[in-house]
């Protein structure tokens, strides 16, 4: 079902394995990872449905001759983003067991021992199946369409107070642990450059990447647009007691809600 890890056969459909590196990501590595309809939208959106086919640059490459050329080592060091293809994932691996130890030291104080969130810090676990209900719970498990994003975000931005300081093995382990807490991967699952892109996240198929707007239509009516008797006040912020004080020094609401 949706909450199990993707079958290993998915990875076999492309000749270059996910987790490859290079100067580009490419559509062929997405087979079995990204839904075809989404891939199509991504390609169309990038060029505005081909609007750029006849694009002519104003100048030749390196026309102004300003700046230097970064070295391959510099490019590799700066390039940290990991797309759904898994491109740019580094060597290394990790497991939920190793992740648990790292998590309890570095993450639990904010995200809670079970990823349940604490003091309004984000909840990382749960909510799968809740999205269409009146009380949707958006978490890594329930909402995020790609596991590569989990790896990428932990790597770039966590732990909050010391972002981008974890080693690849640590990030793999934390990814494994959080996915496992969400019931998406088994505790025996090994996270590495090959396996992470292949994880089939529960909400993978629920994103529409094509902007459907305008979807809300109003008209610039000037006279008798609605019947006066139909106008009722449905809510009034003055009765809510949620507004901080708006004059004087900034209100931190320490003694209020």
């Amino acid at each position: 079902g949706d909450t199990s890890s993707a079958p290993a056969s998915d990875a076999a459909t492309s000749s270059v394995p996910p987790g490859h590196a290079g100067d580009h990501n490419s559509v062929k590595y997405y087979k079995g990872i990204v839904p075809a309809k989404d891939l199509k939208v991504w390609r169309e959106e990038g060029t505005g449905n081909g609007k750029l086919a006849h694009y002519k640059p104003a100048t030749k490459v390196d026309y102004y001759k300003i700046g230097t050329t970064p070295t391959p080592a510099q490019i590799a060091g700066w390039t940290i983003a990991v797309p759904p293809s898994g491109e740019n994932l580094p060597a290394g691996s990790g497991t939920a067991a190793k992740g648990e130890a790292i998590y309890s030291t570095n993450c639990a104080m904010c995200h809670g021992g079970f990823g349940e969130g604490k003091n309004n810090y984000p909840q990382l676990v749960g909510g799968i199946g809740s999205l269409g209900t009146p009380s949707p719970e958006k978490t890594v498990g329930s909402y995020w369409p790609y596991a590569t994003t989990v790896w990428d975000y932990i790597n770039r931005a966590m732990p909050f107070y010391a972002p981008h300081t974890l080693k690849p093995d640590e990030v793999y382990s934390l990814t494994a642990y959080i996915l496992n807490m969400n019931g998406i991967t088994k505790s025996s699952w090994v996270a590495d450059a090959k396996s992470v892109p292949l994880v089939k996240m529960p909400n993978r198929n629920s994103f529409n990447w094509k902007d459907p707007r305008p979807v809300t239509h109003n008209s610039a009516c000037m006279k008798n647009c609605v019947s006066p008797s139909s106008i009722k006040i449905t809510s009034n912020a003055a009765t809510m007691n949620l507004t901080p004080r708006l004059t004087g020094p900034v209100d931190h609401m320490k003694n209020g809600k």
Partner: protein
Amino acid sequence: GATMIAASARAASPAPTAPPADNSWSNSLGAPVDARPYGQPSKYESSVVRRYIPWLSPTRLADASFTPLQDQPGIITSNGLFFERYHSGVPTVDPKEFRLMVSGRVKKPLLLTLDQIMRYPSVSRIHFIECPANGATEWPAAQLNSLQLTHGMIGCAEWTGVLLKTILDEAGIHPDSRWVLPTGSDGAHMDRSLPMVKCLDDCILAWGQNGEALRPEQGYPLRLVVPGWQGNVNVKWLRQLQVGREPWITREETSEYSELLGDGKSLGFTWVMDAKSVITFPCPEKPLTQGPGFYEIRGLAWSGRGKVKYVDVSLDGGVNFQRAKLDNPILDKCMTRFTLPYWWDGKPALIQSRVTDDTGYVQPTIVQKHKFWGHDPVYENNSIQTWQILASGEVNNVQLS
């Protein structure tokens, strides 16, 4: 004669009845030109500051502060009051250590210092930047009794810098270089995938903001300005522009800044900020304090899709509208100021503004918005704001059926 009357009036009452002809500051010296090499607002304006919603975020380091639109007289937002939004605090970037890398699917990768970036051909343009979460608290109901906190995640400034197109042409893109990933050097390493078609259109790598260097909260020393698109894609404290074939599907375009609709499906990549307007006077912070009589209704309107064409104002909760006057200049993806004369009879009223942009799009009601977007998609609340004026002149934020 007349001479003596006026002369004796002055002689007999050197300090005429209240108010006196001279204030204390009229009979003394003020501050010298070397007192404030960098000037500050009057001490009497100390209440005009960015404010935040204390219960909204777990930490002030991944939070937002709001522009006091009730005190913004025109279309330019003061740099000191420009709203803030970031995910790991405002970094203190040393411009000498700053580097921008252009890499990925380009013919000639580039590593640029700030001084080098400033040598390229440049442009200077006035655009608004709005966070798509502006008005987020107001999706389910009227919650905050404040213009600043319901509409203040927007600012409008003159941005000066290099067209992103210039740098992309310089690095040389391949026909399959369809997306660009700008990344920040802040702790969050904030990144958003942007379609090449927009990058080659009107995006600016900006170092200048309203007459000076970009402010720290706005990405000093270099930010991306993506005119008309949601605030977070205007990546700040830039460190890299990576060119690729497909988008990266980052956390900020999935977990954040996507809209979960009522049916459990989500919209990703809803970049453009739809047309919106709001009455900035009167408003909860600026009630009608002087009794019945003449006031001027004032407000701001903008569209991420182009120019403001009309603003219509209703004084009766949306039954009838009158066309407001627009102040020049009316610029692309820029705030436009509107005004309407208002003779207040001292009775309760429900006032609204409604913008139409030059694509013909008309700002919707919250009821219309709820139909497609569900009751709490967090982002994209560009609905018509209703202010309730009470007989006392006080103003409340309300929503109508």
